[in-house]
């Protein structure tokens, strides 16, 4: 029987390579939870068995229940009548089964009905669900909404909201975007005000809200009248109800199974989450780590599905008396797709582990502080993990969402005219991929979020260690190519910083982030190849083509080609 976990050699490779000892230990309170909860693991090995069990089950659900319904979900879409949003029938069944399988609160604590699964493992589940039906990720993959209540809410709020997320009775939404506050969330206007008793209410409009019809909404609102920037914004949680009206749903290019709503709040009772004025700068910022990783997993799932479609079509399709997969031009496209997919997956799970570790260290520090114990060591580790997560999260989102678009574009191309037709899955995948480099921050914004860390060369020590590492055999020459890419990066970086020109730095940022991403993925795959011979081909293609691209990136930066930006008004007639 098909299984999206067991049939995916590369995903299995990453699962088998996971070292979750520290993360699982913290999550399970050094396995003390097993004394209270029968489903809790008794030791690390047991925990890994649990994680594998869950992933095998998600792989089965994704392949045998969710994927076969995806085409109908896409075709049927969501419907909207009399202010009520209804999911496609397939989506309804998917949600019911995911709830029956206890998967809707995977990452939430057991005390509220969750499974207490580490974030990294959850991301593997999100990848598989997205491969089956990308639009379902927007319901299954947004458990971080509940997790934000868990992290920053009061115990009372946790008890009020979390259990029903776990049973699947509640779905949620993040209501951040407004007509005039898209990428620029500091401009949020939706008003939050208090009555005499200090109770909060919301009033205003939100737009492009994924699953805005959900039962529980996290709302970013202006709680400090008269302010205009991020410091006047707070985060609220509220139930849907008569005061939250869905005004319309959007008619979209892709992810048809996921409703995108315009919401009007009319004096909606709400509860403050955490402290006032920290809505954007602390809580939404924190939520964004996980939300961006979720979209990256979605992009990876779509890319995997598109690659599979292209490969099987190319092998079956005969032209000129042979399968088109044997034509060099097509074979080359397929190899390029496979290499992108695998190196992207390496970046993604490296980043996921980093985010996971950061969050768990935060938990441990909180627990230690509560017990009055010293936290010096943990604080230093957290600081280091946070620095890296701050780079890898936007970098992964940028790289993976752009790749998903390229892979699904090429996958459609491999199909030729057939791929343009609705009967073939690849057409849906190409449409679904298109949103991934837009929502939760466009690629351009991910570059903005990354560039500071790239300029600070936050991975310097990690890269130094790799530069010095000995790689055996043929990998030695790839290591030399990596050192060359690094030299190109450093040279380009010096060129940009020495110019001290903010506008130039803005346009050169993309090339610098690209260069840095080659270094991350290149060394990750080189390490993998050192342990796993089948990765050598991937490393070879990736590093050599990255070197060629790195030369182009460096040339773009140094050639002065961007100087014409000064003449934009003249050129853009």
């Amino acid at each position, binding site marked *: *029987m098909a299984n999206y976990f067991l049939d995916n050699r590369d995903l299995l490779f990453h699962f088998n390579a996971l070292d979750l000892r520290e993360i699982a230990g913290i999550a399970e309170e050094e396995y003390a939870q097993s004394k209270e909860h*029968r*489903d*809790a*693991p008794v030791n690390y090995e047991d925990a890994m*068995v*649990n994680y594998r*069990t*869950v992933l095998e*089950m998600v792989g*089965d*659900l994704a392949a045998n*229940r969710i994927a076969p319904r995806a085409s109908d979900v896409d075709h049927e879409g969501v419907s909207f009548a009399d202010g009520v949003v209804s999911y496609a029938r397939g989506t309804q069944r998917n949600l019911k*089964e995911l709830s*029956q*399988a*206890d*998967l809707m609160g*995977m990452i939430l604590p057991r005390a509220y009905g969750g*499974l207490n699964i580490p974030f990294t493992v959850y991301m593997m589940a999100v990848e598989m669900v997205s491969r089956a039906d990308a639009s379902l990720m927007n319901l299954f993959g947004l458990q971080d909404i509940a997790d934000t209540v868990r992290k920053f809410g009061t115990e009372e709020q946790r008890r009020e909201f979390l259990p029903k997320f776990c049973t699947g009775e509640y779905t949620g939404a993040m209501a951040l975007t407004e007509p005039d506050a898209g990428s620029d969330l500091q401009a949020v206007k939706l008003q939050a005000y208090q009555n005499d008793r200090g109770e909060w209410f919301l009033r205003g409009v939100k737009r492009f809200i994924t699953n805005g019809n959900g039962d529980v909404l996290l709302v970013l609102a202006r709680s400090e009248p008269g302010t205009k920037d991020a410091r006047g914004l707070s985060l609220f949680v509220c139930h849907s109800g008569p005061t939250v009206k869905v005004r319309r749903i959007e008619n979209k290019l892709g992810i048809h199974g996921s409703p995108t709503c315009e919401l009007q709040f009319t004096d909606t009772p709400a509860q403050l989450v955490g402290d006032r004025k920290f809505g954007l700068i602390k809580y939404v910022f924190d939520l964004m780590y996980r939300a961006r990783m979720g979209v990256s997993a979605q992009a990876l799932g779509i890319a995997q599905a598109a690659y599979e479609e292209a490969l099987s079509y190319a092998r079956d399709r005969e032209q000129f008396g042979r399968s088109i997969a044997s034509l060099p031009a097509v074979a080359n496209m397929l190899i390029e797709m496979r290499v992108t997919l695998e190196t992207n997956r390496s970046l993604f799970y490296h980043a996921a582990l980093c985010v996971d570790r950061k969050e768990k260290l935060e938990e441990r520090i909180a627990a230690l502080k509560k017990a009055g114990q010293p936290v010096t060591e943990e604080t230093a580790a957290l600081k280091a993990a946070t620095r890296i997560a701050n780079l890898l999260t936007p970098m992964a989102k940028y790289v993976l969402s752009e790749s998903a678009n390229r892979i699904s574009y090429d996958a459609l191309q491999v199909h030729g005219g057939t791929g343009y037709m609705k009967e073939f899955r690849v057409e849906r995948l190409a449409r679904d991929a298109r949103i991934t480099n837009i929502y939760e921050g466009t690629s351009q914004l991910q570059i903005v979020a990354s560039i500071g860390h790239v300029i600070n060369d936050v991975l310097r020590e990690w890269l130094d260690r790799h530069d010095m590492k000995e790689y055996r055999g043929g990998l030695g020459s790839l290591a030399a190519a990596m050192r060359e890419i690094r030299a190109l990066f450093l040279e380009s970086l010096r060129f940009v910083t020495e110019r001290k020109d903010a506008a130039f730095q803005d346009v050169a940022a993309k090339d610098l982030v690209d260069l840095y991403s080659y270094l991350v993925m290149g060394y990750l795959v080189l390490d993998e190849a050192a342990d796993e011979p089948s990765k050598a081909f991937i490393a070879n293609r990736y590093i050599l083509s990255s070197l060629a691209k790195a030369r182009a990136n460096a040339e773009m930066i140094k050639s002065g080609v961007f100087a014409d930006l000064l003449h934009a008004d003249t050129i853009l007639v």
Partner: protein
Amino acid sequence: MYRSIVLVKQVPDTANITGNVMQEDGTVNRAKLPAILNHEDRVALEVALRVKDRFGGTITVVTMGPPRASDILRECLYMGADHAVLISDRKFAGADTLATSYVLSEAVKRIGAYDIIFAGRQAIDGDTAQVGPQTAEKLGVPQVTYLEEIVDLQERTLTAKRKIEGGYEVVRAALPVLVTVLKDAAEPRPYSARRMMTYKGARTLMEIEKLTEGNPLLYADALRHEYESRDLFIDTMTMDDLKLDADRCGVHGSPTKVYKVESVVLAGGGHAIVEPTRDGISALIDRLMDDHILG
């Protein structure tokens, strides 16, 4: 609150037959096929779970089979069954439906009071559809076969829709009752991740004994007690446990003898042209009557 018992069977996965599974004489090499929970039994468990979801109660799944049938019992626990019972003994080998239903009915009596017994209509390996009805008969309870839907369940009365040739009928039966369930009656739910993590370590007596083999520090009784205390023990019954009549078990208790297995290859034979005339049609009808196809 209803106490349900679900009869399940481990069967070869005939949907995934590969080259080396079929033997030259046309029989199947069972050892080479993966063993799965018979699909209609899974549906029967789903129907039982829906009764439990709605009215409350308990579900006990029972299987008669080799020790490795514990796999499907764990799967039933993952779906939501409360208890599992394995009936296993070398002396049960070669049982036909008569011997099987004898063992199952005695095991059911041993389990205790029940309201509804659910079973799949038939297993994909034997295709007899006899074990359910024969078990009901031996227990002396009414049976509703070919169940498509439970229409209503009130106090001690079950109203059910059952499939009949050319349509369906709605029947009423007093509890306790045995029903056999068709595959379209319900779509089985997925396993619960939490239950998988909870029950992945559930073991039968044979499996516990195996753990103690070659380990002088482990005692089966003590280990069994530990599994019981953690609610991870799959109740295990042998012929002696059930105090069964050996002459009615296994090969001895099975009057069905397989005389011959033939590999029938369906192939198109010759064809005849029938002229579309009165004479031509008459000749065709005569021939069909001679062959006892008509009349």
